[in-house]
């Protein structure tokens, strides 16, 4: 109550923002509503009981979380580097990093095969030297999802890194902090909201990823069959089942996001 009063004038929603926000929310939610309203509720339990669905769901969550983690580990440093001013060619690198967003996913899968497949320019060597083949493995799914999802994180984080006050980093240097200490103790804590947003973006994108995954990692149940692939296949034979599966995926994703929000996202 007091909190709410405290923010009243700054937090109130002016109509110029409220109206488009409501339209925007409606626009995003209406199709979901339609999906839910017209879902084949009666047959839902049948679909959900199938062990293949449970497998696919588990695999989806594992792979999307791994991909999001990989995207954070590699993407946050990359975003940080891209956000530093004064590097020559940084603009070009930044634009190139955006490319996987534009690439139709199937072509992304083809590109991954050409790079990391058995005959790919790096995959060839991986196969010969280390005996590692990525296609058709769960690792391959993670690779494909990371490839598709990481650019989202990188772009979101880059924006966040650019927004922070350089004064704090200066203060940290004068206190003798190394650049790594500055990054972990000053820079990163300042971009926690952006990091959360970026991670959610990457995770959600990875969870819904289909085209690149099926092209690069194929579809073998229990190993590479994620929910979106199961949905696609169900679409071929039984569109209602497909919608049901998609709803399961959604419900799980929303559930997880809400639970996480409650835990640590509303804290800072």
């Amino acid at each position: 109550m007091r909190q709410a009063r405290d923010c009243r004038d700054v937090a109130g929603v002016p109509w110029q923002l409220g109206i488009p926000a409501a339209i925007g929310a409606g626009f995003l939610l209406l199709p979901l509503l339609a999906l839910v309203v017209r879902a084949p509720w009666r047959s839902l339990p049948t679909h959900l009981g199938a062990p293949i669905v449970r497998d696919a769901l588990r695999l989806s969550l594992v792979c999307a979380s791994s991909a999001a983690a990989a995207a954070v580990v590699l993407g946050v440093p990359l975003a940080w580097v891209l956000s530093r001013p004064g590097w020559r060619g940084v603009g070009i690198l930044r634009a190139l990093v955006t490319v996987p967003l534009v690439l139709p996913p199937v072509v992304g899968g083809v590109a991954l095969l050409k790079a990391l497949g058995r005959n790919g320019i790096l995959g060839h060597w991986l196969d010969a030297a280390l005996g590692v083949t990525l296609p058709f493995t769960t690792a391959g799914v993670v690779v494909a999802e990371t490839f598709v999802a990481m650019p989202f994180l990188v772009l979101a984080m880059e924006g966040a890194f650019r927004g922070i006050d350089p004064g704090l980093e200066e203060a940290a240097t004068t206190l003798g902090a190394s650049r790594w200490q500055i990054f972990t103790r000053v820079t990163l804590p300042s971009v926690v909201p952006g990091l959360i947003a970026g991670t959610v973006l990457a995770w959600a994108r990875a969870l819904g990823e289909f085209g690149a995954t099926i092209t690069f990692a194929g579809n073998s149940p229990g190993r590479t069959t994620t929910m979106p692939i199961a949905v696609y296949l169900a679409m071929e034979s039984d569109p209602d089942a497909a919608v049901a599966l998609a709803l399961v995926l959604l419900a799980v994703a929303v559930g997880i996001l809400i639970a996480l929000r409650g835990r640590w996202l509303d804290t800072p």
Partner: protein
Amino acid sequence: MSAADLTLSGTVVRGGFTLDLGVTLRAGEIVAVLGPNGAGKTTLLRAIAGLTPLSSGRLTLGTRVLDDPGARIWRSARERSVGVVFQDYRLFPRMSLRDNVAFGPRAAGRSRRQARTIATTWLDRMALGDLADRRPKEISGGQAQRVALARALAGDPAVLLLDEPLAALDAASRAAIRADLRAHLADFAGPVALVTHDPLDALVLAHRVLVLDRGALVQEGPPVTIARRPATAWVAQLFGLNFYRGRVTGPGGLVSLEEGGLLHVRLHDDIHDGEVVVSLRPSAITVHVEPPTGASPRNVWPGVIRTLDLYADRVRLDVDGTPPARVDVTPAAVAELGLAAGTRVWLSAKATETDAYR
């Protein structure tokens, strides 16, 4: 850290502004840096701290070259071990006050426990022990400045740079922290630069004063000298003195002032002619409501009181005359003489109180 002198001579460019300077801060010496807003005080500290590079010249700490663009030498801020209190505090917003202060010790490789102990000690010293677990957003402005001070000191630096460390403190904390600072700085082996707008800080804390204006050094010396014989009107105003420019026109120290008027002065340093500046303490001027007769002061001139301001234990008169003057009198005198704005008065000052120098 073994103590070493810091020498800077060169130029620093920041945007369209250039600072051009040659100074040495000796180990153990506290140097107050004074100057108008925008004079380049912060820029000087930034150059020493390694946040803004020299454009030319060289910066050394003892035998170590910290910055020498000509020789392509550059030590980063991190390697310089310079403690800085920033004018805008720059506390880390997502850390508790304790963690803010522990940051330096942690960066220096102390264990978490040790660092926290050091931090707690410093916070207690600054009378902030109760607030140790708060975030910077949850404290007042003056409290924030004290945390910034504690943070810089906890890092155990070789050089200490303080950008208005007392500006946001209340008068009591200010006196206390000033005393504490003096005690701590007395133990401090390295050079200290203290930017301040308060002449008292300079007088009480500093061994030497640098006065900057528009990127250049305009006066340098011990605080007392600066306070007695200011070289510019700005410094004179800072220390509350009347200040005039003039030229020696007669024998025995008669100076004709630029603003009009003549003053009999005490000439220093074998000056016999040419341009001089004259300073005169407001409390060395006597006010009369009738022309003084047969008085010993050689300088007597009429004027009209423009304003009166009551300070704690004296009244400051702003008198329009040739030359104009600020005069301090006791409240009793005001009452006795019936002084008010618009009152016609005569001012007198002894020649021996009227310092002239170059």
